[in-house]
């Protein structure tokens, strides 16, 4: 009896770990943009949705999942660059509420635009044959595609870490996060860096979207629920903190999974309970720095 429930618990914990990995991928772009630009990008969910649709589009054109996986995030990133250049930039220096309202409205514009182009009914695409089905892990059988998403998430995180810690541009990004005025005083065009980082953060939303397509289906409203999850992860981890987003994503994944096992009705509430508790003890989130959000 105990063996069985231990095995079930292990299965549940592993499921939670992989779910956490997906949450990290969803939240990391949001956190990146906020960290540098102090902009809460409400359109993140809709750009995630756009990634899934672009993935569907590229897949239809090329019949290659790999092409979709690489091209769709780039396409979404380009949309992000356009948004930053022509919509966000005029708002810098104004109240942060303006950027928030802009991205909030933009998210609905994107949803309706997608419905005009691809129709109201959702779409679907399948993972490559090699990733279909489940793999026997000994204590449970687990979908191969979810393991693949976890692997992609790890690769992306390592690449992002390398970019931020080991490259010159990354150095400027980090410096810009800490003291934008000083960086400007050194003669660095921070506007270009913001532009690139916004595009990068948005491209990561697009990547999460392509990856989620075969998992959750592709439909215009798919970003609405996801944006709430991502915000919880970013807030719990600490606004703008990348390690925070990783730890918080995994934490929330486990909390959801284990609560679902014992009391599925509570799974939704417990996430917000965790958020409230973390904020009570650490008002800036687990890894947040006081004052960054002001």
């Amino acid at each position: 009896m105990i063996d069985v429930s231990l095995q079930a618990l292990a299965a549940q914990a592993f499921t939670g770990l992989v779910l956490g990995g997906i949450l990290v991928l969803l939240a990391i772009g949001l956190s990146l943009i906020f960290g540098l630009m102090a902009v809460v990008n409400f359109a993140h969910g809709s750009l995630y949705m756009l990634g899934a649709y672009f993935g569907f589009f590229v897949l239809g054109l090329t019949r290659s999942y790999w092409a979709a996986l690489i091209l769709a995030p780039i396409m979404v990133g380009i949309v992000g660059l356009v948004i930053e250049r022509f919509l966000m930039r005029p708002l810098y220096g104004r109240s942060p509420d303006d950027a928030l309202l802009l991205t909030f409205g933009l998210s609905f514009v994107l949803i309706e635009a997608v419905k005009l182009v691809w129709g109201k009914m959702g779409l679907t695409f399948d993972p490559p044959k090699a990733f279909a089905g489940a793999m026997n892990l000994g204590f449970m059988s687990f979908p191969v595609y979810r393991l693949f998403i976890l692997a992609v998430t790890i690769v992306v995180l390592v690449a992002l870490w390398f970019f931020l810690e080991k490259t010159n541009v990354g150095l400027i990004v980090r410096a810009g996060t800490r003291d934008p005025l000083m960086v400007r005083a050194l003669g660095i065009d921070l506007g270009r860096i913001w532009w690139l980082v916004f595009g990068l953060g948005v491209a990561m939303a697009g990547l999460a979207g392509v990856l989620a397509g075969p998992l959750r289906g592709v439909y215009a409203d798919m970003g609405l629920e996801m944006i709430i999850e991502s915000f919880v992860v970013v807030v719990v981890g600490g606004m703008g903190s990348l390690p925070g987003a990783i730890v918080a994503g995994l934490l929330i994944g486990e909390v959801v999974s284990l609560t679902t096992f014992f009391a599925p009705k509570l799974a939704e509430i417990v996430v917000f309970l965790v958020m409230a508790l973390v904020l009570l003890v650490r008002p800036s989130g687990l890894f947040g720095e006081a004052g960054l959000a002001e």
Partner: protein
Amino acid sequence: MIDRRTFLTGTIGAAAVMACPAVLRAQGSPIRIGFPLPLTGPFDWIAADQQKGAQLAMDVLNAKGGALGRKVEVLFRDDELKPAVGAQRTKELIENQNVEFIVGGLAAHVQMAINEQAKKANKIFISISQSDEISAKPDSGPLTFHEALNPTITGRSVGAWAVKNVGKKWWIVYADYAWGKQNNAVFTDVVQKNGGTVLGSTPYPLGKPEFSTHLPKIQAARPEVLLAAVPGNDAVAFMKQAISFGLKQQTKIVWPLHFVDLAKTVGIDAFADTYGGTSFYWELQDSVPEAKHYVEAFTKKFNRPPDSYSGYGYSGIMEVARGIELAKSTNSDAVATALLNNPSYAHYKTKQWWRKCDRKAFQDLWIVKGRQQLKGEWGYFDVVSKVAADEALDRTCGEKGYA
């Protein structure tokens, strides 16, 4: 050789002459029917189907000269799947557009709000989506008609059939809101009454398509049947994830309702060998003459066969027209009385009738099974059984609060 302009003028003239008798017959101001429905939101694809049915009904009626010699005009309004908006739109339709009747509504909570407005204005409301409360006290009024199936009838029909034909050991996954909870309750009851057991049931938050944390536990319980009370886009995610966990190899999946549009989205492979109930499936045209007529007209107009909810929209509008002709009046009280005194009708499928005490429509429903091979472009299902219309499948009028 006639040039294009001459040809056009001639054609239009001829068309006008030919249309003349109908125009003369349909004199007077049109009879207006208000039709609130969620044209935007997560169920917009079902609403689009309902709307097509109503548009077709309008065409068919007006081609025959309308009702009482007046044209029939259906005014569609987007209720955004929100009760407050539904109430507002219905009020506007009644007060500003002078509609005489209300047909429409999708989702239990929105049709309640629509119904309240129709009740206040003493107008007939024919509800065309699932709800147990809409035909029960205290929500139902003397002019509230319910054309669609409800969770009780669907659950009892599909549940009883599936316990006998698919498996005895069940697990239920349901969206944690009114419709899902009603399905959970009705199916749990009917499975047990028919000698099956419900090993467990799992609620999940509506609109949150992540099932990975639920699936290991369900799989470990090894149910023979998994009931998925999972609506709309969540269903796509549910099927994909259930399959990726390998659930379909050991468990048969049953839905309260199957939709052709959903099967098309999820894909034939995922829907293969799953069971569901339906108020209408277009291949019924092979065996039901009224269905043949309806499916042909629908396909001609929209270039695709109907899904199930367009039938409700079509039948709802046709019933208003039938009532008007019977009553020789557009007064809602007179039309309601006429319909209840002549309760049988068959606009698009087998015979239906109104039960006098609760103004609920009784109708056949069918159990369909996902095919392994798509037949043509839209042939996703095999019809495996018919559950004949039967008032005993619903709660009695006593149970619904009618003395």
